[in-house]
Every structure is written in C-alpha cells, then in structure tokens.
C-alpha cells in the first residue's frame, strides 16, 4: 500500500496520526472485514505500537535464555518470578519511562516507578525494593540539570510516599542522551510460591472489575508517543504524560494484597501503557476468551468522556480483575475500606472478542486474535558495524607521577563521582529490611522475617555497546552478575530494558541484534536467565539516536545474611588483593574519556570462563569467611575501585606494587576482576586456594593510615579524595 492508491473511507492522515503504517491499516481492514471506527482505530494504534507489540524486537528477544532451575515465570507476564527457597519467590521487572521523562521529568519518572510497582504487586508480591538505571546528556548541556533534578525528585517523590525503599541504581552522562534521556525503573517484590497471581481471564460469565482511581483524559496515546521519535516540536506532546498519585497507589497496593489473601481473584492485570485497552485485551488473550465491557460503568473524573478516550486513557493507579462472582461483595467492601473505586464493568465471554458498549450502543467489536497473535511482526533489516579496532598504548607515553592527580580528576567526574546527593533523596531504609544501602556493588534487602536476603544490581555500559555491541551486551549482563557476587549472593536471573534508537535504521537494528547475542551468550554461560523486561525503541531526536543501552537488572540470593559483603575497607593491617588477570586494557576506558577526552579503542572482551571461575572463587571464599570486603573492578579500573573502598571505609592504604605500565594497570578496564580485603592470618590460605582454583591473585597493599599512598609516586589524603568525590553533586 502506498499513499497514491489509498482507497479507504478512513482518512489517510487519521491513520498516520495514530502511528499506524498504511499497510498495517490494510491488515486491520482485512482482519475485521470492514474499516474500523475511530474507537477501534485507537485500540489498534495502542496495541500495535512498538511499546505494546514488540513488533521489531520479538523475533530477537525469543533468542534469549529464559528458563532455569529457579525460574517460575519467565517473560510474558506482568513480571518474572524466581524461587528463593522456603516457599518464597522474588518477583521483578524493569521498565522504561524514557519519552515521558524527557518531556516532564518529575511526573515521567514518578509514573515510571508507579507503573513498575503495579506490575509487581499485580503478581501478588509485596514490593520490597526499587532500583533504577538513568542516563542523561552532557553534564554541561543546558537541560541536564533540570532533567536530573526532576527525575530524581519524581523517583523519590513516588517511592518515598508509597513506602518502598529505593535502594540503588546507576546514573551516567553522555552527549548521546542530550535529546533522549533514559529512565529505567525496576521493582523487586516478595511473594509466596503458592500465592502468585496471573493475568489469564477465565470463567465465562465471571465479572470483570475495575478498581483504583477514576479515569480521566490524561496520558491518551502515551504508548504511541513512546513509540515515535522526537523532533523540535516534541514539547507539544507534554499532555500525553500522566500524573502520578503515590498515595492512591499505596491504597491500591494494600487493598489488592488484602483481597489476594482471600480466594477471590481469578485474574488481575494492571492498567499501564494503553490503559483499559491493553489490560482487557491481554487478559482475554491469555485466557483465550472474550470480554464485554460496558464503558458507561467506568468510573470517570472528567465529564463527557468518549469511548475512544476511555479506552486510551493512561490514568494511573488502576487495575482490572476477574473475580469469583460469590466474592464480589467481599471484594467491594475491601476496596471501599481503602476509599477506592470498585465497579463491575463487564464480563468474561466465550466470543473471543473484545466488545464495547456505551450508552446502550456497541462501540467496538474486535476479535482478540487479530489484535494480539496477528499483530505485525517485523524482521527488520540490519547491518552489524565492525567493532571499533583495538589500539595499543605504550607506557612511555604516560607519566607515573600523574597517576594520583589523574585519580582525583576521575573520581570528581560526573560519571564516577559519588551519587550520595541522589540517593539521600530516596528513602532507602523504609520497611527496615535494608541490609546494604546504596553505594556498594549491589543493594541487599532482607527477606522480611528471615535470615536470607536478595541482592540487586542494575548496570549497563553504552560506550562499550556502541563500539562493540556483542561484547557490550555481554558486559551489561556480566557487570550485574559480578556486582551480585561481590555482595556475597548467588546470582539468579535478570530483567532487561532494551533502550535503542529507531529500529527501522539497519545499523540501529544491528546494534540491537548484537547486544542480544552478547547478552544471550553471557546469560547462558552464567546460568543467569532473562525472566522479564521491556523494549524502548525510537529513542531519537531529529534523527540522532542514543547509544545502544541494554540496561540490566540482576537479582541474587544470599541464604545466610552473615555472608553479606560490602565495599568499605574494614580494618587497619588487613591486606588488599586483586583477583583476576590485568592486561592494561585502556581502550574505551573512563581514563581515556575523562583524562584524554577520547572515546576510541576496542571494548574489553569478556572471557566468560574466567568470569565464571573467578566469581565462583569469590563466593567460595566468602562462604569460608576469608574476606572482609569485596568490590568488583568496573568503571575506571583498579585505582578508582581502591579509592571507592577507601572512601567508603574511611581507611587509607599503602599500595606497594611494581609494574612496567602503571597507568595501564591502575586505569585499565580488564574484566573478571575483584578487589578483596583479607586479614593477614588468612592471606596465605586465600593465596593457596586461589592457586588451587587457577585464579590469579596479586597483593596490592596494606590497609591503614589516612591516605592512599603508592610506593615511589606519592600519596593523596582521604579528605581530599572525599572532597573530590562529592564535589560535583554537592555543587549541583
């Protein structure tokens, strides 16, 4: 179908303004056997946009490993579920709220948190932790400060009020996000294995119930907006951003969990992107049934809303449920107690159609399968660019005496400095189960009433992905795995948020394909499957795409909380050792970008066998109580990691090493490495164990004093390190 042979009664411009391609419209007409009315067109637009249909990504996402011994529910439900022993499960997912957060940072971020929380408690889990992964543009870009303040305010505003701790996350700055920031929010919840709730509608004639807030005109076409690029006029899309009400969500959370204790709910689905449309269709599709809805019954807070508006509103804090008819009054009394709307708006049918009525007239009748199974799926063309070539560095080009000055510059840079300014605005202790607070490798939350915990980490390195999407994809997965190991937990599974540019461009699609391949290889090797996730494409402004950013949220289990590890150095006299091979990999490193203002060289390659071997060794040492603190060596390399350990523990260190190429050793970003603190009397055992496991171990220095000193080079005081580390955000 081209523009010139358009032969339908529906205006072509109307179709295009709904974000539908002309041949997609033709497919709708074919499926329905007629042209859709406006409400139906709106429904197709909402279901077939990229955000809801995964039409460009589905084919590739299927290649990721999604099963494992502990996986109870993989991708496809509101959130994934893993077994954490003793009849307990952890439920988690990460989701993007990028487009709205750029337009209206506070509400965009706040509703992102609200949405992911609902995804988790819909499954029957009480949310216990929020995390996030944030990307902003150049720190000096005029919009950056406003966006950072707004997003941090919105995340805190929502999480603090609802009373779920925000226990960590990651934040980075790069000019590729100047026109499209990324706000990825993750929630982890805990439920009982025999009390998990799903979304498949069942039981012909059973009531379909609407609960939560009333419906207004906010957020209409939000999901469609999130499936398009931005241009100079994007500010005009601000009305598509929803407004969050964390107080109502708190009531909804408590009411849902209270009702879930009764045997009343058959199916439940939150009204997120595309509101009533996607929730009703997903429930019907999963249950292979039909749903009739009487839109006149939908609780509204704006007068004269049309069927079209009711179906596409993205008003927040709403849920759709199918309940046992006999339990209707019980359910109603619970929601009434919490001052929430409760209305039977429809019933489950055997028609396998979504049929809508309003004021006695039929407004829409669409077979569910056309909307879901027959939704367009594309295998987009892709080109895989050659990875950026490796470059070699020679020690003669670097001056050893610059090392400590370079360190100060690096730890004061926005990408490596302390994030305390951010996480002090998040209540990270409410619920009184936070074991490891933000600022360590992974956050650790106690499973309430037990002595076990879950470790959570989010991560991604877009510059690695940009220069070598395959290794970058591996890296994102491995980095969270290593963070979880360093906290003393057994890594179990991940959720992902695939943030990319326009998939209709072959090189962007190539980045996507390669990142998935890298992630898949890492997940398979590490037995660390993907159990939930989300895709955010079209992160472009005026044709300029973001760097490929597959953000990963990993979760692990600590069976005995006394094995929890943190990064802060503990005791004077202990020895700091480096685990893993160092090969002076400076290509694409923070050192190059911060000190030399260069972004070139190859992404460090990851040997997954080494990762597995070294990670297992660390966990083994932790369980043998050999280690006092552990930190994975990540962004910035060994010396930055040492500085972080010193700052956290308020301890100095005397580094005593000899190397031909000190800059390469201190700032290289080779993978599969950890720094570990060991007491003198356990040092020998640690070294023997390392040699038995064929793991490389090196002594770095002795802990103590009030400075980091490096033999033959000099020293820098802790107080100066702390000043440099906190300066940037303190002056924000």
């Amino acid at each position, binding site marked *: 179908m081209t523009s010139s042979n358009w032969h339908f009664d529906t205006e072509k411009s109307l179709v295009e303004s709904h974000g539908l391609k002309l041949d997609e419209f033709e497919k709708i007409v074919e499926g329905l056997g007629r042209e859709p009315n406006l409400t139906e067109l709106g429904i197709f637009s909402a279901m077939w946009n990229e955000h809801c249909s995964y039409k460009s990504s589905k084919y590739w996402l299927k290649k990721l490993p999604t099963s494992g011994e502990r996986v109870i529910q993989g991708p496809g439900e509101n959130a994934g579920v893993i077994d954490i022993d003793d009849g307990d499960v952890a439920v988690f997912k990460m989701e993007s709220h990028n487009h709205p957060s750029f337009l209206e940072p506070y509400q965009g971020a706040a509703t992102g948190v609200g949405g992911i929380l609902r995804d988790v408690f819909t499954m029957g889990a009480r949310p216990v932790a929020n995390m996030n992964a944030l990307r902003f543009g150049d720190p000096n870009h005029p919009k950056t400060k406003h966006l950072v303040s707004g997003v941090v305010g919105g995340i805190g505003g929502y999480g603090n*009020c609802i009373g779920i701790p925000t226990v960590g996350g990651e934040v980075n700055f790069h000019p590729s996000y100047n026109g499209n920031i990324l706000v990825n929010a993750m929630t982890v919840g805990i439920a009982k294995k025999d009390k998990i709730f799903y979304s498949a509608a069942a039981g012909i004639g059973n009531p379909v119930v609407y609960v939560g807030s009333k419906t207004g005109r906010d957020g209409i076409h939000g999901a469609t907006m999130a499936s398009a690029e931005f241009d100079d006029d994007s500010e005009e899309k601000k009305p598509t951003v929803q407004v969050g009400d964390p107080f109502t969500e708190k009531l909804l959370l408590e009411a849902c969990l209270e009702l879930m204790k009764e045997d009343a709910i058959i199916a439940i689905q939150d009204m997120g992107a595309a509101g009533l449309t996607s929730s009703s269709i997903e429930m019907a599709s999963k249950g292979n049934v039909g749903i009739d809805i009487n839109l006149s019954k939908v609780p509204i807070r704006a007068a004269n809303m049309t069927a079209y508006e009711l179906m596409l509103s993205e008003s927040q804090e709403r849920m759709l449920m199918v309940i046992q008819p006999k339990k209707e009054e019980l359910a109603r009394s619970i929601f009434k107690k919490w001052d929430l709307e409760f209305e039977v708006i429809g019933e489950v049918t055997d028609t396998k159609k979504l049929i809508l009525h309003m004021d006695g007239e039929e407004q829409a009748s669409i077979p569910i399968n056309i909307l879901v199974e027959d939704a367009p799926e594309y295998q987009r063309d892709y080109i895989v660019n050659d990875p950026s070539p490796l470059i070699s560095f020679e020690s003669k080009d670097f001056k050893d005496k610059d090392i400590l000055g370079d360190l100060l510059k690096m730890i004061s840079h926005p990408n490596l400095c302390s994030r305390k300014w951010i996480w002090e605005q998040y209540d990270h202790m409410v619920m009184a189960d936070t074991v490891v607070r933000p600022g360590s490798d992974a956050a650790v939350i106690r499973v309430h009433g037990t002595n076990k915990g879950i470790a959570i980490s989010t991560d991604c390195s877009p510059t690695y992905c940009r220069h070598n999407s395959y290794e970058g994809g591996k890296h994102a997965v491995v980095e969270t795995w290593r963070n979880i190991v360093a906290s003393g937990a057994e890594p179990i599974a991940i959720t992902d948020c695939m943030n990319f540019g326009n998939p209709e461009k072959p090189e962007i699609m190539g980045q996507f394909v390669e990142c998935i391949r890298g992630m898949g290889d890492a997940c398979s090797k590490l037995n660390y499957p993907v159990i939930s996730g989300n895709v955010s494409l079209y992160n472009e402004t005026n044709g300029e795409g973001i760097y490929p950013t597959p953000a990963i949220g990993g979760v692990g289990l600590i069976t005995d909380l006394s094995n929890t590890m943190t990064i802060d150095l503990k005791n004077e006299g202990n020895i700091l050792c480096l685990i893993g091979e160092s090969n002076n990999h400076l290509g694409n490193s923070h050192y190059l970008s911060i000190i030399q203002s260069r972004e070139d060289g190859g992404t460090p390659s990851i040997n997954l066998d080494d990762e597995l071997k070294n990670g297992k060794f660390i966990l083994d040492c932790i369980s043998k109580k050999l280690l006092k603190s552990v930190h994975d060596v990540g962004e910035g390399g060994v010396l930055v990691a040492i500085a972080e350990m010193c700052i956290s523990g308020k301890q100095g260190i005397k580094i005593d090493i000899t190397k031909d190429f000190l800059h390469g050793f201190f700032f290289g970003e080779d993978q599969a490495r950890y720094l570990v603190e060991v007491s003198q009397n356990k040092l020998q055992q640690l070294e023997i164990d390392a040699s038995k496991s064929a793991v490389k171990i090196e002594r770095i220095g002795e802990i103590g004093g009030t400075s980091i000193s490096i033999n033959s080079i000099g020293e820098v005081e802790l107080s100066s390190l702390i000043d440099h580390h906190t300066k940037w955000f303190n002056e924000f």
Partner: protein
Amino acid sequence: MKTHVIVFPGSNCDRDVAVAIQNIIGSSPEMVWHKDSTINQSDLIVVPGGFSYGDYLRCGAMASTSPIMKSVIENANKGVPVMGICNGFQILIESGLLQGALMRNSSLSFICRDIIIKPTNTKTMFTNKSTISKMPIAHNEGNYFANSNQIKEIEDNDQIAFQYCDENGDINSHSNPNGSINNIAGVFNKSKNVLGMMPHPERAAESIHGCDDGRNIFESLLS
C-alpha cells in the same frame, strides 16, 4: 505492656514500628485503623511515619482530624504514653498535642541518612536510657520551628527531647540536617508523656540496620 499502633491511609512505617515493639517490648501491638474511634486501655500509642493522606495538604493536617485522633488525645490527656515518629510527629503537632511546626527542610529536598542525636532531658519515660545515638532520618518536612516565646516555654519546661549533634555530642550548624531551630529533633508535651521526633528509632533497632541505638527509647518505656 499493651501497645497500639495507629494506621492511617498512607502510613508506611506502621509495620516497621510494630516489628521493633515486638522485638524489644516483647509483645505485638494492636494495629488500630484510623476510622476506629476508641482505644480503651493502652500503655503506649505510636503514631507511625509515612505519608498520611499523601501529605497532599500540610503534612499531618488531614490525619489529625481522623476519628481515631480524638481517642489518642483523650488517652494522652490521661497520661498514656504517646509517641509520634516522623509523619506521626507532624500529626501530633497538627492535633495540638505538641507545640511548634515542622517546615520544609532548609535544603528543600528530601533527606534520608543517618544523623546523631543527643537527649536533652533524660528524666522522662522515653529517654531514661538515652545517650548520644545514631539513627536515620527520612523526611521532607522536618525543619522544626517555634516562635521565641514558645521556645522559651519549651526550654523552661525541659520539653526538648532530642537535638541533632555531631559524633562528639556538640550541637552546631554542621550537625543540623534540616534547619531545625536550636537543632531540635524531638519535643515533649508539658507532662512528658507525649513525644514527637523526626528520627526513626525503629530503623535502628537491630544489628542488620547497622546500628541499634533506637532500641533505648523502647527499652526506656519498659523500665
């Protein structure tokens, strides 16, 4: 000891304080829904932290008019120990049980971190075991204010419960996290059976919290 924890819509530290009471006092409190109207017999009533009614109006203002507050006030006037933590402190001020006001933090942002407080009056049922203590704060409106007459009255009656201080116990501007006048972190009513405080003792009540200094307030009530 018979204890009660009030639950408002939007309370979110109700469970945390119930766990602390269970662990330290040894029996679990009765959770009282805000629409209930009476508490008959109690040895301690806690108004917990959170965002009652979303704090969409002035913090604590809506909750202070909830049905249960009438009974809380009656009990307080009879001498029953009443403790308001964070949002609970705001509610007790709004209900008139405590003097002063809690304004927005001077930094204009939410603050969640450990602070140190020093008991100003250790001769009360809440503070007879208190020493310099570390515990977290987590609030947006914890900036205590009272006019000079009120401050004088509060001081003269030994009604200041806690003040923010540094590790050495020095009360100075560096150790003041939110701009509170005279570093005030908590106050009593005149008869010292009502305590309002911004810091969260229930979040510093066992070893996994990294500090258990908050226990001494509950232990004090036991003795």
